[in-house]
């Protein structure tokens, strides 16, 4: 956060509604929190807002304050964060401005949350063994009743599931019914390919992770003078000294060849790696290198542009660069190298969606685009727990107050911070209106740098400054979520039970289509091999200027013919609603393919952008 907010143009001087901001409570369902972190100091904070109905039940040795107004723990003794993760996400969403922080001099700057004057309520549901569904649901039950304004949850399952079996979808549904928007991380299974996004319900805001313009790199200088660049967050300096290189395969006593090459746990012989830099064919080999007492490590990785904190002088090289080092090692009698301390450089390609960030389309409801939006989630510096190792490797005995980590976990609280910021200007907006504001004002992302397009980044990259003034919003009204459930086949009895009232599906609910849910993006799944015509129906609400006229603008895509009726929307008052229809036609698509374009409603001041995605994934 020493760079991420500025990267989005959300600098420290943006206009803020401080009085309202200090009444906003962000609920964080995570691994707990470190209450003594400067990011959660309550200096300058008054008592909690009157609407706060929660309590401080953080367990042993845990005290709340006027910044950290509530804490609750499930199935454990203390809400104190021993993982670091919950402290990191909470401080990203709503941590104080803390000047002059860094990770051993790297990424120096002011760490800050999206809404530094807001309050935090922490719900600890995770331990090092994971996070039980039963506890997650309990945290939602409490957070909603406690009176939080938003909930950020950087937790997910291995795969997506039906809404009625997903505790986060269930919790978020009831949160939305009470006016609380829930942000969830999209998941970190992007390398598994399409349909890996695990947050699929339309009432949640699902967040992908992307890079920012600060890239961490590290360099290794070989004995022959060749310098290779790789990725790591390496805080160690070898002081211009080269050390002998040894391959994991040559430094084992007990392991088979495959295990030795990747430096599997227990494979390295300490006496063979002492004062040497060991090469391991997998990134995970760093742990064994550290345990065995190697001086440093060179690791192979298939993930570019993401750097992880390492417990010893180490860096990850691409397959080509790693092969160069192996070739140098095998062709020299006394191979040696120096690993330099990491540095940061400017990455002009940013934002690029991280390869680990889970991809759409949505496996459960293919006609709701997921993820919804992208935000910085790579190499984020934020508050951390001094009880945890910064590299997450147990033998790394360093302890830090601020750490650099990556994941959709890190992007999610960025969007939560922006959603909270929007709420400070529009306290009466519904969760769907806030969600729409974030999505329709998002920076378009460059598909040439992001080949998975909308399935990687959704509507684009969150744009906090624009999000407070979207012009039009795709709001949902009471009953819309229930009608959506009807459209995906939920029966009458179930609907009544979920809603708790006499809600029923419309008579012709078999004709309701999920793609007609008033969503800020437009997605249709069509059969492969046939030309297609699909229609969308949408309603926008004027939240910009009372008397205004919006014209539709369509971006070009030679393979999609898009018609919008009407092409002009004229408003006479605020909160006025206008509906329009979109017809998209195109020629037959192959299996597992997608096409996209976008429509923008513009009044010359506001640009209300929605992606249109047509795909053939089943």
């Amino acid at each position: 956060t020493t760079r991420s907010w500025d990267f989005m143009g959300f600098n420290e001087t943006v206009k803020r509604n401080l009085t309202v901001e200090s009444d906003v409570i962000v609920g964080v369902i995570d691994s707990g929190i470190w209450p003594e972190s400067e990011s959660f100091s309550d200096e300058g904070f008054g008592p909690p807002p009157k609407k706060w109905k929660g309590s401080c039940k953080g367990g042993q040795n845990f005290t709340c304050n006027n910044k950290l107004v509530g804490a609750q723990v499930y199935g454990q003794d203390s809400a104190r964060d021993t993982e670091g993760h919950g402290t990191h996400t909470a401080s990203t969403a709503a941590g104080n401005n803390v000047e002059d922080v860094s990770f051993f001099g790297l990424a120096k700057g002011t760490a800050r949350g999206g809404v530094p004057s807001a309050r935090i309520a922490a719900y600890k549901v995770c331990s090092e063994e994971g996070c039980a569904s039963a506890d997650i649901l309990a945290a939602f039950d409490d957070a909603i009743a406690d009176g939080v304004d938003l909930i950020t949850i950087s937790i997910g399952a291995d795969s997506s599931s039906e809404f009625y079996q997903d505790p986060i979808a269930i919790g978020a549904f009831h949160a939305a019914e009470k006016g609380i928007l829930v942000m969830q991380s999209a998941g970190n299974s992007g390398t598994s390919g399409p349909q890996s996004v695990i947050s699929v319900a339309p009432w949640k805001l699902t967040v992908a992770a992307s890079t920012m313009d600060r890239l961490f790199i590290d360099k290794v200088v070989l004995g022959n003078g060749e310098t290779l660049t790789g990725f790591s967050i390496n805080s160690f300096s070898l002081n211009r000294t080269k050390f002998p290189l040894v391959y994991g395969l040559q430094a084992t006593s007990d392991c088979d060849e495959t295990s030795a090459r990747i430096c599997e746990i227990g494979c390295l012989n300490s006496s063979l790696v002492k004062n040497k830099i060991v090469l391991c064919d997998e990134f995970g080999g760093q742990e064994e290198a550290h345990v065995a007492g190697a001086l440093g490590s060179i690791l192979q990785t298939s993930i570019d542009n993401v750097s992880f904190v390492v417990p010893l002088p180490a860096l990850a090289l691409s397959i080509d660069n790693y092969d160069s080092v192996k070739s140098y090692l095998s062709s020299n009698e006394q191979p040696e190298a120096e690993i330099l301390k990491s540095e940061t450089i400017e990455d002009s390609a940013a934002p690029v969606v991280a390869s680990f960030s889970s991809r759409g389309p949505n496996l459960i409801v293919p006609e709701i685009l997921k993820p919804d939006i992208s935000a910085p989630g790579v190499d984020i510096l934020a508050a951390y727990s001094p009880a945890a190792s910064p590299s997450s490797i147990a033998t790394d005995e360093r302890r830090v107050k601020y750490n650099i980590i990556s994941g959709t976990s890190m992007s999610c609280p960025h969007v939560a911070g922006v959603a909270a910021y929007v709420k400070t200007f529009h306290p009466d907006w519904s969760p769907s209106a806030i969600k729409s504001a974030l999505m329709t004002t998002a920076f378009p992302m460059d598909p040439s740098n992001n080949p998975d397009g909308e399935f990687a980044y959704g509507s684009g990259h969150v744009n906090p400054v624009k999000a407070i003034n979207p012009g039009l919003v795709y709001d949902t009204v009471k009953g819309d979520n229930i009608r959506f459930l009807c459209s995906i086949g939920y029966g009458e009895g179930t609907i009544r039970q979920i809603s708790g009232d006499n809600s029923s599906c419309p008579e012709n609910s078999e004709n309701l289509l999920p793609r007609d849910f008033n969503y800020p993006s437009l997605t249709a799944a069509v059969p492969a091999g046939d030309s297609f015509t699909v229609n969308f129906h949408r309603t926008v609400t004027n939240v910009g200027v009372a008397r205004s006229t919006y014209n539709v603008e369509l971006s070009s895509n030679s393979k999609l013919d898009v018609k919008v009726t009407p092409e002009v929307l004229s408003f006479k008052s605020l909160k006025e609603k206008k509906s329009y229809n979109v017809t998209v036609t195109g020629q037959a698509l192959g299996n597992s393919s997608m096409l996209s374009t976008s429509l923008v409603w513009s009044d010359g001041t506001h640009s209300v952008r929605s992606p249109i995605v047509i795909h053939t994934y089943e």
Partner: protein
Amino acid sequence: GAVEEDRKVYIAYLGSLPGGEYFPSSHHSSMLQAVFKQSSVANYLIRSYSRSFNGFAAKLSDEEAKKLASMKGVVSVFPSKVYYLQ
């Protein structure tokens, strides 16, 4: 008659809280009593969700979970899985 070791934590989701006078814990206990056909269920009821929506977590065998799922007013019964930080 299920063997204790075969039981795992299931979540019973009952939707929104009903209006009017409603005592979630006793309702949840009576549902479990109907499943177990015994009056003492305190050891099996792990958690009641009753502040913002309706449901509970309980230790059940697969058969007991199926029986619970078929009861009136139950939206879904599903195993409590392990989720992960992302």
